[in-house]
């Protein structure tokens, strides 16, 4: 059965592009545009990978990551974080919150796909 990724991203056009790219690679993609209920959705879906934007309406990517890491069921889930502010502070916060990998926008499609492959392989 093909792998599942939950993508939490409020920029619809970015979400659409990522969905297309990952589908090409054989992924099933579930997208969410709001942070508020994201942790619950992720828990239910039990995906192989989560892609999280940092700045989301409802709840920030950091808060969602925190919830995932404090739950044993999702504690080890690979999480790839996306941020538009490539500031060292964001990166440091993400690492502290236990992110698996961090990417700054704009990124190339190849970079993003490489990161996804790496996360699944490890």
């Amino acid at each position: 059965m093909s792998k599942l990724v939950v993508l939490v991203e409020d920029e619809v056009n970015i979400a659409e592009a990522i969905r297309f790219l990952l589908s090409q690679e054989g992924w099933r993609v579930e997208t969410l545009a709001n942070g508020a209920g994201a942790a619950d959705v992720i828990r239910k879906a039990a995906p192989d990978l989560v892609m999280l934007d940092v700045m989301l309406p409802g709840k920030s990517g950091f808060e969602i990551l925190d919830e995932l890491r404090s739950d044993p069921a999702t504690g080890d889930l690979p999480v790839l974080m996306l941020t538009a502010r490539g500031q060292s502070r964001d990166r440091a916060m993400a690492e502290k919150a236990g992110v698996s990998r961090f990417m700054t926008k704009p990124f190339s499609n190849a970079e993003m796909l490489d990161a996804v492959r790496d996360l699944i392989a490890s």
Partner: protein
Amino acid sequence: MRETLTGSRIRERRVMAGLKQAELAQQIGISASYLNLIEHNRRRIGGKLLLNIAQALQVEPQALTEGAEAALIAALREAAGDSGLAGPEAERADEFAGRFPGWAKVLASSQRRIAALEQTVEALSDRLAHDPQLATSMHELLSTAAAIRSTAAILAETDSLQPEWRDRFQANIHQDSRRLSDSAQALVTYFDNAAETREVTHSPQAEVEAFLAAHDYRFEPLEQARAPEEAIAQLVAGAEALKTKAAQHIATGVLQQIARDATALPLVQLEQAVGAQGHDPATLAQALNQPVGRVLRRLASLPDLGAGLVVCDRSGSVTFAKSIEGFTVPRFGACCPLWPLFAVLGQPGLVMKSRVAQMGRGQAQFDAIATCEVQAAPAYNIPPLSQSVMLLLPVPSGTTPAQPVGATCRICPISACRARREPSILRDGI
């Protein structure tokens, strides 16, 4: 004024040289009591006697008269302190200013420029870290760029892209490219507006002071204006001295206050009252049935009085200063907390009057009259804003003992001060 300061400078230099009054008097061939009168600024001094005193004290005569001005020396001492110059050489700022007045001015203006630049740097780094508008703009720009980049790459790199996907992505790119140009535009506008704060030759406060001084702190159009807002807008727009937005904003606030004061207490009325009863602010406030704060502000714009005025807000930040020779209001950094201006903060209604002298050079004396006024409450249950006003009236020095105050701790010579925040860069008290 100049003579006033000369005597004090002689005294200061003599004490620094470790000479007794009698010793110096003997050296230059005058009586100790006459020297005493000179040192207390009770006798004019010049010519041969001044040269003799300068020689005996081993300083340039200029250092005793006009060459060594308080602000210049203060700036030199600050420069020395900032670059860690210590020891006997650091003590010789006034000698340097006396011997090389031109170079001293160059150094002092560099020092002031550095301070202004540092303030700007701080403001700019602050802006990058905390400005929500900038953060939002950057986020918008980068997000849109990310969407376009991914979508464009899909269109360029995917062989045999299905027509419905292709149409979809083309529409997305079209939409995002418009967003990108909008957010780029917004960012440029933001930086265009921000660019003017980079002109740092003067701080906005300095621009406002220059503007007010050019008008002698009197604005006839506001004295009988029926529509003051219009007159204010005209004055601000037509002022060359007000280069930055910040200065225009501050000046507008100052002029609005002047207009309110002018409506309630026209200068003509004040001048009549001063003619009849003298210029004691409390007496005038009673006679005119006006708040003391207003009387203080209005008195400051009477040219004959030659008074200084300082206004601060609830946080103690100086929001307005009309300079007066002999009383330094630091442009950067915090003021001396001993000023009566701060003593009345939080005690609305109290009017304090005290004789003060700023330590250091000159030691001109002033009658400081200060009061704190509460600004109108904006709504229920909100702590009101307040401001303190202090009028400085020059008085002949020497007669009454004055309370010693400073300008700012870094350049203040009072060694054992209960209000000291940081050590002085001067070695010891004068």
